[in-house]
């Protein structure tokens, strides 16, 4: 990205004052190196978001931002319904409520390492991954609607997962305001056999070791102990979310002129929050959030079943479950006044700081856990929402490394079997249905996640708590 048009506010904050159709400034967070490495499209997309009706304060791009659909991935924007604000299907994305959860196990690396191959096989057999694999659970129409209204609470009531998990999930496991009737028959049809499936692309289930602790007090509150094993799951709302995203993007793009909205880019498709279409989308999107929460709860349940069988001594507990493609009604301080606004986080994680009432009590003093997925080779991070995140980015932080290389280029440069062998030498066991899929997800195709989280810390969005490295990676 050409930074000459940006004003550098501090070491990790860059600003573009409103120009042309922009209603608010664009603010980019990242070190000079990360911002320079971003595609020019990130600035163009952030400027476009800044021009949407009813946007408040600023349009934000986070240190992992890259070129997305309408909104940049790694983008945050909030809209005021009282000021003609909009909700954007593109601003949430196709994989609604895609997210990450991490489970602590109390197991030491030394207990798991000798049987890691067997564990990889057992997890790969228990959790359906990739295209064409269906789940064990087939839902009737009534059950589907109950799942869409109940989220992870529904899953727990069906015997998948434990009641104690719910406290450790955003919205306590159930997103209010879901409207199953706003979800099309086609979207439900796509989900009928997909509950408890991981999907593909960058989705994964990993057995990881807590390799390094940077904030001992926060780590203690989170139950993270150096050398111990955690399970991390990255996936979303599967076919249901994809279908809802597809249908509403089309409908919002075609209806924009009737709503008096001029779209600089069709993918920015949006509708006024106070319109029938906007409300219908919110109902459907919230149902998709519940679908993702239920799905991660079920996959977690399948994984815990495997661990319990192999390690009866394991003491498993959900650390936290975050979603990174959402639009949520939240209260934030804007120009000294508290206001209810609709915060879009596209490839961005909610990151409430210490003391926030929505953070579960045992974690509250430390701040909300922010779980960051890295690539297969580089490891992942646990951060804590910073006290300054509220003022900086509507309490949002990064979500992952972000791609540095296209899938196209990755398959030209890498071979899946060579990557699997190289990772094996480095102590990471990979199970995946497709070697081409592995090549597309080559560690070198991603930005340096360590640099991304360091920049998020410098920008005051979240602070680093612990670094996790994979031992087993089940790749979708």
């Amino acid at each position, binding site marked *: 990205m050409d930074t000459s048009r940006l004003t550098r506010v501090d070491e990790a904050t860059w600003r573009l004052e409103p120009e042309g159709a922009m209603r608010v400034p664009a603010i980019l967070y990242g070190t000079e190196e990360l911002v320079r490495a971003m*595609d020019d499209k990130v600035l163009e997309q952030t400027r476009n978001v800044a021009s949407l009706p009813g946007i408040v304060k600023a349009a934000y791009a986070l240190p992992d931002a*890259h070129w997305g659909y309408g909104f940049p991935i790694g983008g945050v924007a909030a809209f005021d319904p009282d000021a003609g604000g909009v909700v954007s299907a593109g601003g949430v994305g196709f994989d609604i409520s895609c997210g990450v959860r991490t489970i602590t196990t109390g197991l030491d690396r030394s207990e798991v390492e000798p049987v890691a191959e067997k564990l990889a096989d057992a997890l790969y057999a228990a959790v359906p991954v*990739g295209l*064409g694999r269906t789940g064990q659970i087939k839902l009737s129409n009534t059950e589907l609607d109950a799942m869409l209204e109940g989220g992870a609470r529904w899953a727990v009531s069906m015997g998948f997962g434990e009641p104690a998990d719910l406290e450790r999930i955003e919205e306590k496991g159930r997103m209010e305001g879901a409207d199953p009737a706003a979800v099309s028959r086609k979207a439900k049809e796509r989900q009928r056999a997909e509950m408890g499936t991981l999907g593909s692309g960058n989705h994964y289930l990993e057995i990881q070791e807590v390799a390094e602790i940077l904030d001992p007090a926060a780590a203690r509150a989170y139950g993270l102990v150096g050398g111990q094993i955690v399970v991390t799951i990255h996936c979303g709302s599967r076919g249901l979310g994809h279908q809802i995203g597809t249908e509403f993007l089309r409908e919002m793009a075609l209806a924009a002129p009737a709503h008096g909205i001029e779209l600089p880019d069709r993918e920015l498709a949006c509708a006024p929050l106070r319109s029938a279409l906007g409300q219908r989308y919110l109902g459907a999107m919230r149902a998709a959030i519940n679908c993702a929460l239920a799905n991660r709860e079920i996959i977690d349940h399948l994984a815990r079943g495997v661990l319990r069988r192999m390690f009866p001594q394991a003491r498993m507990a959900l650390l936290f479950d975050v979603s990174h493609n959402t639009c949520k009604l939240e209260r934030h301080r804007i120009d000294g006044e508290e206001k209810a606004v609709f915060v879009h986080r596209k490839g961005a994680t909610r990151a409430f700081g210490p003391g926030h009432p929505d953070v579960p009590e045992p974690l509250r003093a430390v701040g909300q856990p922010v779980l960051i997925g890295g690539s297969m080779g580089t490891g992942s991070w646990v951060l804590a929402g910073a006290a300054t995140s509220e003022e900086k980015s509507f309490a949002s932080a990064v979500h992952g490394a972000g791609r540095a290389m296209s899938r196209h280029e990755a398959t030209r440069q890498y071979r899946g079997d060579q990557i699997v062998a190289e990772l094996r030498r480095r102590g990471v066991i990979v199970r995946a249905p497709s070697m081409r899929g592995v090549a*597309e997800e080559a560690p070198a195709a991603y930005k340096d996640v360590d640099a991304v989280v360091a920049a998020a810390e410098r920008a005051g969005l979240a602070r680093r708590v612990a670094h996790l490295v994979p031992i087993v990676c089940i790749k979708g």
Partner: protein
Amino acid sequence: MAEAARFEHFPHGADIGVRGLGPTLEDAFAQAARALTAVMVDPDTVRPVEPVAIDCAAPDPETLLVDWLNALLFETATRHMLFGSFEVRLGDGRLEATAWGEPIDPARHRPAVEVKGATMTALEVAPTAEGGWLAQCVVDV
């Protein structure tokens, strides 16, 4: 010289673009569908065992292309099928097509990824300099 029927992929940030080219608009749409299949598997490994009828309507050719590819993704997801060959008929804002394919066999097809949806990014339906047609968009994987 007439535009030869063929497909290509083009890079896009985190995802991938699909492009169909051909002497007619119908050919370009059919080739775009092959490009979509090729994101997931080698389309030549998909046997044309079973026909599935697809019907869409849209106010403009670009939206029709996105609808067509998304209709195929819906059939892939719900019938657990892959499609390798396509007959496309276009007229008056409508598309009527037959997609030929077979049930997904993970062991034989080795699907690389699942496609979440066809998008409106880099969306273009246009005549080519060679007198043929091009139909393209980015797909989210």
